[in-house]
């Protein structure tokens, strides 16, 4: 139940970022052509929203197995070998997360000390706007730890990757359901 709520909240936030981004640019275009006006802050806001969407969503995509990768090599091995290789991959990914988290921490600390804010949205301090780098990679790290746990103690053998071919088959299912084929 708790996990379900977390899931819904994550989806809601991601969808909100995407929709806001799209509408901001759309309204910007309409304003420019319709009224010859433009908001100067719109571009900076849109870019930051999209950065937030990506960094916030990266861990969500890991959970869903929506990232892409190659699993052909790992799948050559028997179950135990797969687990060991995937375990190593998890640890390496965690090292990467740790490096970015560590770097982001130092960077955010410095920016906060300097007290600078964004260029157009002057009321937002830069460290707040850039904090998603830290937050996002912490989330990603947590999801990687969970994955590592299930590799060691559970039944997960390889990273789940997105499969565009399989997703495209959804269209076929839809057509079949509506009796068009």
């Amino acid at each position, binding site marked *: 139940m708790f996990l379900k709520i977390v899931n819904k909240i994550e989806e809601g936030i991601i969808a909100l970022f995407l929709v806001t981004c799209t509408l901001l640019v759309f309204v910007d275009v309409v304003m420019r052509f319709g009224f010859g006006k433009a908001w100067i802050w719109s571009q900076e806001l849109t870019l930051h929203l999209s950065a937030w969407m990506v960094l916030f969503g990266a861990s969500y995509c890991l959970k869903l197995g929506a990232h892409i990768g190659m699993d052909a090599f790992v799948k050559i091995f028997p179950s135990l070998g797969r687990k060991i290789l995937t375990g190593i991959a998890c640890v390496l990914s965690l090292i990467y997360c740790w490096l970015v988290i560590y770097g982001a921490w130092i960077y955010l600390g410095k920016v906060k000390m300097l007290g600078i804010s964004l260029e157009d949205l002057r009321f937002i301090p830069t460290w707040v706007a850039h904090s998603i*780098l830290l937050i996002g990679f912490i989330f990603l790290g947590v999801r990687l730890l969970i994955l590592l746990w299930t590799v060691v103690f559970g039944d997960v053998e390889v990273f789940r990757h997105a499969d565009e071919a399989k997703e495209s088959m959804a269209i076929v299912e839809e057509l079949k359901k509506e009796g068009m084929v």
Partner: protein
Amino acid sequence: MTTAALFILLFGCMLLGMPIALALGLSSIGTILMFSNDSIASISLKLFEALSKHYTLLAIPFFILSSSFLSTGGVAKRIIRFATGLVGHIKGGVAMASVVACMIFAAVSGSSPATVAAIGSICIAGMLKIGYPESFGAGVITTAGTLGILIPPSIVMLVYSAATEVSAARMFMAGFLPGLLMGLMLMVVIYIVARYRSLPSLPWVGFKELLSSGWSALGGLMLIIIVLGSIYGGIASPTEAAAVSAVYAFGIACFGYRDMGPMKEQPWFKPGESLGAALFRNSWQITLALPKCIFDRDVNKVLMDAAKVSIMLLFIIANAMLFAHVLTTERIPHHIASIIVELGLSPWMFLIVVNLLLLAAGNFMEPSAILLIMAPILFPIALQLGIDPIHLGIVMVVNMEIGMLTPPVGLNLFVMSGITGNSMGWVIKAALPWLCLMLVFLGLITYIPQISLFLPEYIDKLKGY
């Protein structure tokens, strides 16, 4: 040394099955920490700036959003009806119609496997019914489906321009003629085969049906017109055009076609209703339905699907920019270029090498991943050899198309095998003759740069540069 470390780390991580984004990030950060003096804080900033400083990148989520609204069976059906009306009466016309439908749907959806799935599942059944061999239809559609990444707007092209900072608008102009040419080549071959094997054609449907099917397909066609018109005309950037097309796609899918969303299956005209009454009813219904979209299940699903793919791609791009940063600071492409010049390799030989390299890579990796890794390496070399970056981009995209037709990663093959229920071997065999045609096409594109460069240069001239 640095080069070796970078590539060993990268390929090692990828072989372990790590997500490509993380593999790119780790190998770049690792190399930077081992061989240069950059502080780790500055690398983190670079990662963030990759996402927050590139306005063109925003076109990617917007185009993905618009394509997920319109990559539906309903839209495919309307496009096929129009395409059949257009060319169905010619010899081999049903197969030609599937090529035309693939071209239109490919432009709307920007995805090759989705094109094969949507067009293939409807057209192959139709072709079987009037007596086409199944393998013929399967081969044509598997191949025509690859046009999804060549005909603009194309997400793979946006990825290329993100990796090389080539203008996305110019890439979109450059892809148009090659896309048409490839479609024409397919149709000519179909015509010859149809003559030879005397395949059946359909009766001419008449202008009335053509107009009415054209009207019903217009919802999808307008998207192409809006996007290409505004980009070619120079009135909007790809990002702006993409945002407009996303909003337009939402409107058409939910309120125009009503295939999804709160107004699903509400007809525009009820039987016996007068025009005024219908207009009145529809306008209040749409006003009421608009807020309902926020919690609508179909709309939310489309949103989340688009968000998932966008996040995945943009996250790879952000990490790939770190990778490109390492390449530039270590001057790796520069070194390779000087070796190539020393070897006395001329541009055309270099292009052969590029083609072979990309064809090989296409067997193992997804198009966007290959582009993000290879483009930053090949691009500076090509510049030094005097090859136009736009031309290089189109060559790379066509290579990626072929990669979708070759096992073991060929996405289109998997989809076709799923649709027809035949084995992979059968699909590969069905697609093989068409794959050869693609190779001829690749040769044309590689050695006649004017095919790709004509339109962007012509539009430049029109604008008086």
